[in-house]
């Protein structure tokens, strides 16, 4: 007890340096080591944007990352869009800030929801996400794992139209198809057409409908109880303002003597970075400044693992049927049968037991006679 106290007080007073060097282990520098290594390695992030055309997706991406990704973009006319199919376009940029490199990939989905008949228009998107998972799965199970490219989609920003009363059938269909594969962050696009009261009503409506349809959107992780009040307050505000009502802008306008990113109207100027005007700042903070790594973690730990388990089960069930099939990965035979066969076995066991009981009863009856 007394030695412990002495040890602590020694650390507090850095006078006897030699003594401290003997007792100080030094793993407190781990965070800075990780920091150094990660800066050297660089980060990568894949963001998908989805929603009907004309909702301001490209403008928002521009405002978020302050780079113009869509230099040459061909917008189709209405006639061409009558029977348009969904494409997947990838734009990759390398951006750097204070020595930290980020390889940013934006996956765009032009044509989503644009045709007259939009049945299953989310299929190309789910196929793409599955494809990335499959590729990572193969790479991970391969022999040489030094340079695995992580192309998995870490986050999907889904743009909900502000002109309606809530979620539309195509929104519900898309989110239900993708909520188990990607972190979905729903956004209310073009929020400058809604007065504050309408925004609140719409957010409530959307939250209700998300619960009603059983859609699992990305949940912000709970902050630890030992964080300071400020942080907790911020976290609470963040959770309460989901889904974020955002406005994007490509132009810089002059407002109150300052140059701000905004939209100029005859009746006023909408400032994109003004918290009272829209939730753009919250979105940016969440996406880039605080939760980027968490999004990546959830993708790796939850969505990818689900995919992997599902894939392996399918492969082993196929293998038991057709033993000549070659598998790309080394598979150990599963010690436990999967849930369905277990259920069947249990049912059959019960039936057998019942029949045995009946037989015994009959024997007894005959004996009584």
């Amino acid at each position, binding site marked *: 007890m007394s030695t412990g106290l002495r040890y602590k007080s020694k650390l507090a007073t850095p006078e006897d340096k030699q003594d401290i060097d003997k007792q100080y282990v030094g793993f407190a520098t781990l965070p800075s080591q990780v920091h150094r290594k990660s800066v050297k390695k660089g980060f990568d992030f894949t963001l998908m944007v989805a929603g009907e*055309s*004309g*909702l301001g997706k490209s403008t928002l991406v521009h405002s978020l990352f302050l780079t113009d990704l869509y230099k040459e973009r061909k*917008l189709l*006319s*209405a*006639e061409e*869009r*009558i*029977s*348009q199919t969904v494409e997947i376009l990838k734009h990759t940029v390398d951006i750097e800030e204070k020595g930290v490199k980020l390889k940013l990939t934006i996956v765009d989905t032009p044509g989503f929801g*644009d*045709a*007259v*008949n*939009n*049945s299953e*228009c989310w299929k190309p998107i789910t196929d793409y996400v599955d494809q990335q998972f499959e590729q990572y799965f193969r790479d991970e199970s391969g022999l040489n794992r030094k340079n695995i490219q992580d192309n998995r989609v870490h986050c999907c920003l889904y743009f909900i*139209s502000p*002109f*309606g*009363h*809530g*979620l*539309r*059938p*195509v929104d519900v*269909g898309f989110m239900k198809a993708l909520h188990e594969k990607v972190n979905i962050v729903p956004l209310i696009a*073009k929020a*400058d*057409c809604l*007065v*504050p009261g309408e925004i609140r009503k719409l957010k409530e409506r959307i939250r209700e409908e998300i619960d009603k349809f059983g859609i699992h959107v990305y949940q912000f992780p709970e902050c630890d109880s030992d964080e300071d009040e400020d942080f907790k307050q911020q976290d609470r505000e963040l959770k309460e303002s989901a889904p974020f009502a955002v406005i994007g802008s490509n132009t810089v306008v002059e407002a109150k003597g300052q140059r701000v990113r905004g*939209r*100029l*109207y*005859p*009746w*006023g*100027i*909408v*400032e994109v970075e003004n918290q*009272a*005007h829209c939730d753009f700042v919250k979105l940016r903070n969440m996406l880039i400044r605080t939760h980027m790594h968490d999004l990546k973690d959830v993708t790796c730990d939850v969505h990818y693992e689900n995919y992997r388990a599902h894939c392996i089960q399918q492969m082993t069930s196929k293998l038991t049927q057709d033993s000549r099939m070659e598998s790309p990965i080394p598979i150990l035979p599963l010690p436990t049968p999967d849930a369905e066969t277990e259920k069947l076995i249990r049912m059959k066991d019960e039936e057998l037991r019942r029949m045995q009981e009946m037989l015994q009863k009959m024997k007894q009856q005959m004996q009584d*006679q």
Partner: protein
Amino acid sequence: MAATDLERFSNAEPEPRSLSLGGHVGFDSLPDQLVSKSVTQGFSFNILCVGETGIGKSTLMNTLFNTTFETEEASHHEECVRLWPQTYDLQESNVQLKLTIVDAVGFGDQINKDESYRPIVDYIDAQFENYLQEELKIRRSLFDYHDTRIHVCLYFITPTGHSLKSLDLVTMKKLDSKVNIIPIIAKADTISKSELHKFKIKIMGELVSNGVQIYQFPTDDEAVAEINAVMNAHLPFAVVGSTEEVKVGNKLVRARQYPWGVVQVENENHCDFVKLREMLIRVNMEDLREQTHSRHYELYRRCKLEEMGFQDSDGDSQPFSLQETYEAKRKEFLSELQRKEEEMRQMFVHKVKETELELKEKERELHEKFEHLKRVHQEEKRKVEEKRRELEEETNAFNRRKAAVEALQSQALPATSQQPLRKDKDKKNRSDIGVQQSGMSLSNSKVMMTKASVEPLNCSSWWPAIQCCSCLVRDATWREGFL
């Protein structure tokens, strides 16, 4: 006679001469008479609103007519598009207006919108059809008729800023020959001025290149030609609707209050609402009604009557009377009906006969089966009777033998008499089983069994004391013996 009279009249009509009046006659009050008559009659106006759910159709109607029409918020999850007409009676000064607002509920919400336009087209056609029916009646009252034909269709375009949506294009193409379309850009407070200009040009360009004929404000009447021409250039109107009032300056105006400013509905700088109101209500309402009647309705009528087989004039230029053609068509139709009735009746009779035959067949089969079963049953019964008799005989024989054996036993040693008893028992057992297997009256076999158990085997001590009859039968071992 009638034909020559007509000819005389038609040939004798020369060019009318124009004369000048010597004084004031007074027929310049004709327009006023017309006006006072129509005012007393009242006007009717029907608007069709087509646009996505939540785009602001009801709010705009409330703003246009400065009143609150009772509507509920529509849901996004309607199965298909349906039309919802509501009629209201409005009065301003001494002019009465019967306003019908038809809402296309659920438009643009479904995932598959291929058939979205159809309910709308069907509704418009139905209104034309009703009017046509009224016109063709023998006793008709057109002046009293509540005209439900759609006079104008306000098509609400979503303010994406890029161009028209594919659904908009498809729907407008289907509607442009049936109704006057006025496209409007809804929720225009989401587009800035420069974007709006580009958007309008893009929309008009797309409409023109796809051959969609929207309503053009008429420029042939000098009184309104100028203003209409100017307004034509501003199409489509970018409108903002609001029923809430906000204090601007020292007045209360209808506006939307944002954190960054106030959008005033009636400010020409902010949106085109005032233009829309002018054009739609104050200037061109009557023209819209006329166009509906003279252009769209006449087109519908012509197509419909041509379908029915009417023509304007025959090959030898003798005009068909509507009446005669109608009569001919009616006769044809009736005879067609009769023929079909006959056909159906015959088919019915034929089917009835067939079913009767089938039923008879089945009945016969059933009878046969019944007979067969009866015979089988009787056979079995007979066999059973025979077996019973045999069994009885055997029992009697057994009894006699038993008596004999007992007699012997009482004289001789007990050891030699086991086998025959058991053998008989076995036989009896087999006959029992035989009876049971024939599946007939179980009671017989039971009688046998009870008989067997009742019969006391007055054997001596070597017969083990066994309680149940079956065990008796089962456990008994038989050996060959004398019979």
